[in-house]
């Protein structure tokens, strides 16, 4: 047995004899389990709620009576965002985004009823998910278990004794690192087992699960390296504790809160009201379909007449108003899409600004990685919005086409088409965004985490050398 493994074993024995350390570790394990359980329970209730609502509104749509198709354009459809399977592990921004959208013709409504807007301020303390425990609390536990690892030996004089007995600084530090790395993985184990169980049950994909395991292992190892290195670099255990808790506070609590403020101050988002006003103005600039003198719609009319080879609107085989509806929807959707992409570009610029600091606060990296893999990040949400908008455009245009094509055959002052047509209208079929297609969002966090680990290993190597010199 080498010196390093001896020291690692000694470190485990020390932990087993440290009652406070054991209690804290047990508490964290318990917390992971409680978080997994409550989060899973919450997740399945959200899932059931949303599925139930979706089924209800879909059924209601089918049950609508005979109507003018344009009425159905405004009756619209509600869509609910299904929650991603791994969102129980990391609920990400799910509570901060509206997960229900009302889709109707020529309007883009906001996604509403975000949980955070319906909750008291308590939600702002954080949400109890396994990810919260691993990201926020596990580092602190690792600090408590590791801050004294080397400084303790130095303070008690056992360090000199060990060096005198021929163990070199490199071996000593390696042993401490091995010991605490094993402890860290043990701390993460309950959460990892929950994840693996999910993958085994087929509820989560293997690549995401394994990447998640890899990311969190790197995150936990990073804190082991930090606490053992700090312990080796300072004189007294209490100094190590102060430095590490301070670092934790800055990296895990402070920077993640401060950076968004800076980002928001640097890049501002337009309000929905301003966007709507601009849209309205741009639409008005294109033309007014009700104005017989309007150049844009006159040209449109000529084009339609030419297409059907007729002289006047009355001779058209289709309803002209329906065609204008299709054209209007095309125009408004294009303008909406442009505004939406402008807004999305600003949001992602804000997020990029924050992510750029993940080199400073690796929490941002693990958070990004975890949310992306769990399918609960802002990117997945904007993908949902995009899919909802594409769907909205399709079904609204289908109804408009029904109006154009079916109405000419129906007379009367209140023309309606049969309710059976509503069942031809597609239902929203959400395709969850595959996290693996977002290589950059996965790769970068790993680069940051591995970079930190590399940097800390260098520091640890330096600390190991210094250990021998200082012990004299």
């Amino acid at each position: 047995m080498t010196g390093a493994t001896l020291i690692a074993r000694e470190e485990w024995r020390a932990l087993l004899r440290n009652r406070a350390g054991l209690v804290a570790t047990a508490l964290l394990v318990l917390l992971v389990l409680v978080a997994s359980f409550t989060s899973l329970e919450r997740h399945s209730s959200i899932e059931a709620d949303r599925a139930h609502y979706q089924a209800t509104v879909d059924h209601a749509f089918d049950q609508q009576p005979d109507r003018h198709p344009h009425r159905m354009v405004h009756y619209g459809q509600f869509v609910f965002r299904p929650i991603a399977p791994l969102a129980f592990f990391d609920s990400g921004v799910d509570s901060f985004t509206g997960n229900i959208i009302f889709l109707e013709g020529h309007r883009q409504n906001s996604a509403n009823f975000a949980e955070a807007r319906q909750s008291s301020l308590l939600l702002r303390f954080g949400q109890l998910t396994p990810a919260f425990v691993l990201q926020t609390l596990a580092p602190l536990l690792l600090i408590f278990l590791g801050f004294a690892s080397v400084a303790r030996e130095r303070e008690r004089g056992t360090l000199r004794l060990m060096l005198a007995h021929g163990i070199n600084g490199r071996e000593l530090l390696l042993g401490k690192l091995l010991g605490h790395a094993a402890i860290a993985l043990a701390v993460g184990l309950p959460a990892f087992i929950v994840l693996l169980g999910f993958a085994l049950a087929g509820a989560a994909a293997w690549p995401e699960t394994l990447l998640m395991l890899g990311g969190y292992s790197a995150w936990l190892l990073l804190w082991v390296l930090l606490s053992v290195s700090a312990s080796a670099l300072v004189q007294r255990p209490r100094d190590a504790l102060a430095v590490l808790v301070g670092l934790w506070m800055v990296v895990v609590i402070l920077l993640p809160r401060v950076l968004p403020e800076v980002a928001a101050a640097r890049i501002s988002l337009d309000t929905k009201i301003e966007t709507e006003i601009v849209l309205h103005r741009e639409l008005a600039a294109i033309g007014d379909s009700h104005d017989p003198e309007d150049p844009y719609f006159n040209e449109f009319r000529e084009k339609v007449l030419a297409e059907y080879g007729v002289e006047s609107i009355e001779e058209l085989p289709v309803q002209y108003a329906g065609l204008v509806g299709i054209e209007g929807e095309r125009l408004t959707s294009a303008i909406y899409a442009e505004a939406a992409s402008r807004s999305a570009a600003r949001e992602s610029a804000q997020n990029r600004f924050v992510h750029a600091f993940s080199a400073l606060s690796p929490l941002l990296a693990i958070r990004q990685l975890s949310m992306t893999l769990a399918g609960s990040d802002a990117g997945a949400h904007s993908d949902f919005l995009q899919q909802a908008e594409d769907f909205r455009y399709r079904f609204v245009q289908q109804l408009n086409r029904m109006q154009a094509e079916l109405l000419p055959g129906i007379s009367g002052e209140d023309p309606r088409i049969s309710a059976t047509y509503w069942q031809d209208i597609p239902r929203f079929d959400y395709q969850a965004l595959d996290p693996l297609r977002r290589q950059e969002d996965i790769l970068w966090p790993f680069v940051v985490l591995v970079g930190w680990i590399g940097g800390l290993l260098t520091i640890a190597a330096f600390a190991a050398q210094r250990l021998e010199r200082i012990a004299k």
Partner: protein
Amino acid sequence: MTPVHAEALLLLKSGRNLVALLLLVALSVAAVWSGSVQVSGQQEVIERVAQAQEEDLAAVEQAQAGPRGDPGYAGYYAFMLTQDPPPALAFAAMGLRDLQPYVLRVRALGLQQQLYDAEIYNPELALPGVFDWAFVLVYLTPLVIIALAHDLVTGEREAGRLRLLLSLPGGGVWRRRVILRYLLVVIALGLPLIVGACLAAAPMTGTAAMLLTAALYCAFWFGLALLLGSLLRASTTAAAAMTGCWIVLTLILPTLGNAVIARAIPAGKGIDLTLAQREAVHAGWDIPKSETFERFFSSHPQWREKGQFEGRFHWKWYYAMHQVGDEAVAEDVVAYRTSLIAREDWTRRLGYVLPGVGAMTIVHRLADTDQLGQFAYQDSIAGFHEKLRHFYYPYLFNDRPFTRADFNQIPRYAPRVQSDSLAVVSLLMLMLVAALLAYLGARGIARVSGVQ
């Protein structure tokens, strides 16, 4: 040199204590500054939106008003701006203002389909929560207190100075040390707050109540620090145990409480009422118009005589249908609000036993930036919406044209009266908990500072 002077010198010459205090000053100043930036950002947004909205309204007026202007079209296109400017103390406690809309446009159609619209915000930025004075108070100050107070007696013992200190005739050394540290912490928190409050022209009483809350919350943590410091022999163990307490009290129990409250009190009625309102409004097209009018007239009897019209469509029916849609979901609206208020109530009750949650509740109630503030804004929008509807009804039911002059008569929204209040019970409970811990801490110190 007076003893207090001597203690101050001793404290400030110690690197760790000085760093901890300077850090707190820096954080507190930065938080007040950041809060002020957010407040002025929101004010700018309100001004910007108001400007754009004025132009939009002018364009609607241009398009719709005329000697034969149709009030139905005017009311349909004329959105009216409501705004909720940041309360004076919002800089210290932004609360939910980063999520909840503080500008919202409404028109005289169904209110319930307009009221819950979300403003644009970046969910990823909102996720970690705002950086403001309340955050520094609730989360970070305890850590500074831990650094300052965890080894008050044990540190002296470990350094071998305890017997010498105790052999001196002068008394009150621990009292002086604790009070000095306590006052410095409260000043570090309080001065930036006072400066911010002066700049924001915030009310004296609210600011004073915030200071009192901070003082009590700090007293709680000092008490806890002294108590644990007296129970545990080693100062490092004491520091670790205190950080553990901090994690449990400000991270674990609140998140657990939130999970329980969210689960126990579902807020699904918001979605229910939105869906029900849609059904009500759209069913209106398929049922006889007289049915819709009948329901409308039962709540608006003054227009009962004006229900007839020629042809298939009249705006007065359209507006009546929207109002009937709102009335159809009135029960759901109440149930929805009740569930949200229940969540607030239980959060407040949780604050009776968790000082962090209690302090959070009190300062945000003082700043009027919590959920109750948002309710007050929604209620004022509802009041304004009613005024707006009743403004259009005479034009619609009397078939009066809507002219340019009438455009100038459209009611404008006046910002709500602030609904801030002092959460008295929460404050009393915080006082009680702080007093208890301060007493236990003092007793603990008295015990360990005796002979060993």
